């Protein structure tokens, strides 16, 4: 678990994904190395979620190869796929907690992949796992909320519970699908900081989709830009500034009828009044 390892943890090769007539991904290739924190950046509908969902086998590519942690994901049989998913945790834009269950039970569901058979209720989980779950909650700063209903928490707290649930898997890879899109700026910062901190401490490989350039720039090691299902940028974040990101999107020369600025502004990629050619 150190940054000198360069074996790719995730490697996506020429993946195309079609939903009926909609082509969500087109010839996408990318790799993520161990311990790397990568952001998938793109407008809504550009295929970020679809790409992430390929990494844990929630979607199968129409063609192309997806390898994660040395396994060819689309080829895995159900049991092997479940075993892989145990090592690849995911958090979601809408947190996806069970609202009527306690926070602790929600965290424990992260351990289901390691257990056999269905579980209902706290006592269905071994004590060791319950202690584990409490430790994860302590780590995200919500130990005192363990026995509250999940829907009694604020959005930011719920996302932290979801992170605790992901940590329950002792994952090697963390996938995050727009983890802060439903949060206010303060909670968003808190959640992004928490993910970064945990990734550094545990040596996690992180693939996170975002649509806000500002958040991505200060946060990621590397940014992969997606546009209409195609990779249009793949650069170290350190070398980037906002204008360059904008330039990449602009250079793609959309049809003359597309107002890119408006499109980007409405998607939150840039603030209103911003223009690539200079301040308005």
């Amino acid at each position, binding site marked *: 678990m150190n940054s000198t390892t360069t074996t790719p943890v995730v490697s996506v090769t020429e993946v195309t994904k079609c939903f009926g007539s909609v082509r969500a991904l087109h010839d996408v290739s990318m790799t993520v190395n161990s311990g790397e924190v990568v952001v998938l950046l793109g407008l809504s509908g550009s295929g970020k979620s679809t790409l992430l969902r390929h990494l*844990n086998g*929630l979607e199968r590519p129409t063609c192309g190869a997806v390898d994660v942690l040395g396994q060819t994901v689309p080829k895995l049989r159900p049991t092997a796929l*479940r075993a*892989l*998913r*145990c090592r*690849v*945790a*995911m958090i*979601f834009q*809408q947190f*996806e*907690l*069970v*609202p*009527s*269950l306690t926070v602790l*039970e929600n965290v424990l*569901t*992260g351990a*289901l*992949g*390691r257990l056999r*058979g*269905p*579980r*209902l209720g706290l006592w269905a989980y071994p*004590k060791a796992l*319950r*202690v584990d779950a*409490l*430790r994860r909650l*302590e*780590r995200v*700063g919500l*130990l*005192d909320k*363990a*026995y509250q209903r999940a*829907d009694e*928490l*604020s*959005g*930011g707290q*719920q996302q932290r519970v*979801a992170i605790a*649930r*992901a940590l*329950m*898997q002792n994952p090697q890879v963390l*996938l995050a699908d727009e983890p802060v899109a*439903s*949060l*206010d700026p*303060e*909670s968003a*910062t*808190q959640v992004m*900081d*928490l993910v970064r901190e945990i990734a550094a401490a545990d040596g996690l490989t992180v693939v996170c989709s975002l649509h806000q350039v500002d958040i991505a720039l200060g946060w990621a090691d590397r940014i992969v830009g997606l546009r209409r299902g195609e990779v249009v940028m793949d650069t170290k974040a350190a070398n980037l500034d906002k204008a360059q990101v904008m330039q990449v999107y602009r250079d793609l020369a959309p049809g003359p009828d597309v107002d890119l600025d408006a499109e980007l502004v409405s998607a939150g990629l840039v603030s209103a009044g911003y223009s690539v050619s200079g301040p308005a």
Partner: protein
Amino acid sequence: MTTHTDTSAAAPGEVDVVTRAPRRRVAVDKIAGLGLIVAMLAFSVHALSRLDFSWSSMRSSMDTAVTTFSRMDPISLPPAGDLVYLIGLTVGIVVLGTAMAAVISVPVAWICAANTSPSPWLRWVGRAIGVITRAVPDVVLAMAFAMAFVLGSALPGIFALGIHSIGMISKLFADAIEQSDDGPRQAVRAAGGSRAQEFWAATFPQVLPSWIATVLHRFDINLRGSAILGYAGVGGLGYAMRVAFQQFPEGYGRGLGIAIVIFVLCVVLEIVSSTIRRHLLGTDPAGRGLGGRIVRVATGDRPARPAGGRLTAFVQRLGRRPSSADGPVGTNRTAPGFVRRLLPRHRDAEVSVEAMLHRPWTGSRVRNLVWVWTAVALVVASFWWADVNASQITWDYVLPTVQSFWPPSYGSHSFGEFAQAMLITVEVAFAAAGLSLVFSVVFGALAARNVAPTPGVRQFFRVVLVVFRGVPELVLAIFLIMITGLGNQAGVIALAFGGVGLLGKLVADSFEEVPRGLERAVTATGATRTQRFFSSTWPVGFPALVSNSLYLVDTNIRAATILGIVGGGGVGFYITQASTVMSLHGQVTTLVIMIFVTVLLVEAISTWLRRVFR
């Protein structure tokens, strides 16, 4: 129309407008739909006349009733000990039957619901189970199962209720599953969970409240219908009532007394189940009956929505998502961002993992535990009271009993005979629905907030509807048949009575759902109260009225079948005869298929009409 021609005659320039205006399209389907409705209404009237609701026959049955009352012994109850035993037995059988259906319904609903079903063909299997179990009346099942159990055992009744109730519970439960949030399920899948783990960890907790509400609702229905199981030899109040009514005149007072006990029991337990729903689920009592009403009055609360929508709304409330701006994130909400980031994450240092290992005994935890153990105790007590055990099953007869239903046959009868019987049952259903409709529209409109002239009138008619609904219609039917000596006519009156309670409530609710703004707009044009009713309330409420009426026909067909068992005619008569003899079970299958096809036909008509008058 006439005003139109008048104005155009007065102002020649406007003729132009009429010619330029688009022609009104002739809506063929609307005309056909209206024709169908008129035809069904005519059929109801025809059925009422065929069933001899003539003045003379009414007079003679009145005379019979008067004679019966004058000659029968005074109303009495069984000795207290016996009465307690009978009540316990009836409740126990209903509890066990409902519990059995509740458990079986979980996997059935799981394979039925589009979002959890493992495969499309399993969905069809699940639907078939639901449809078939709903089509076969519980009392028929109880009669048909009799052979497979030791005489006097409560098991045939329990199995009959347990199987028949699967249809409704699994249908409503599957609906709730389909409305549940898919996100948590995906989260469990992404964490490596299996299908079963997905269901129990993510789906079931979401739909648990609606499952409990449905099961309690079904418990009420089963209790109301349980008296009829006495006619299949299942012990309890129904059986005691039947035995009492077999002796004239000395048993009638006792029979009537037991009927009153059943009525009171239904109301009391509806209060109990409504209270549970309220406390356990924090939802309004969904019961349309007296019990739910009493709870609402006692707690000073009025339902916000009609019963159907409430469950849905409840499920949605559980599945709602928090907005980004809802509430403090941590204890340091007021601290500026950078300060907060500097604060240690483990700011709750006083709370340790060891201390948190034990769930605190909060009020809600105690309450939930008490409910769970009460439910367990109730089921255990029911087992003990109903005195059931596996040794009461005659295993040698189980398989032959199941096999005896196939293939379907006509026995010594012909298709014509069965069709004739089916026609009579359908006539009873339509006649009762027709009577209910007339009274429901009047009572329901007067019970609707936006139609009733004063709040007092509304309240009065709401209570009238509750009283109508509170009477278990089959007990009323038995009573009327015993007292008047009539068969199907008495049944029609009983079904119509219960139907007014149900349909009137639905009518009132559908009128109240008419958007207020719409009515205000019409009032603002200077329309009178009556004009407002016919120009806004009625057209908006009409489609619901049509589909609710046909829903009533559907439940009436099922209920009218059972009337045959207690002394009416129609298919119920043939089913009763055939279900008690194993070699005749093929006929039961034939008749159930015929009922089923008829009900499907009514449902198809209802769906089509709903689309036409949308």
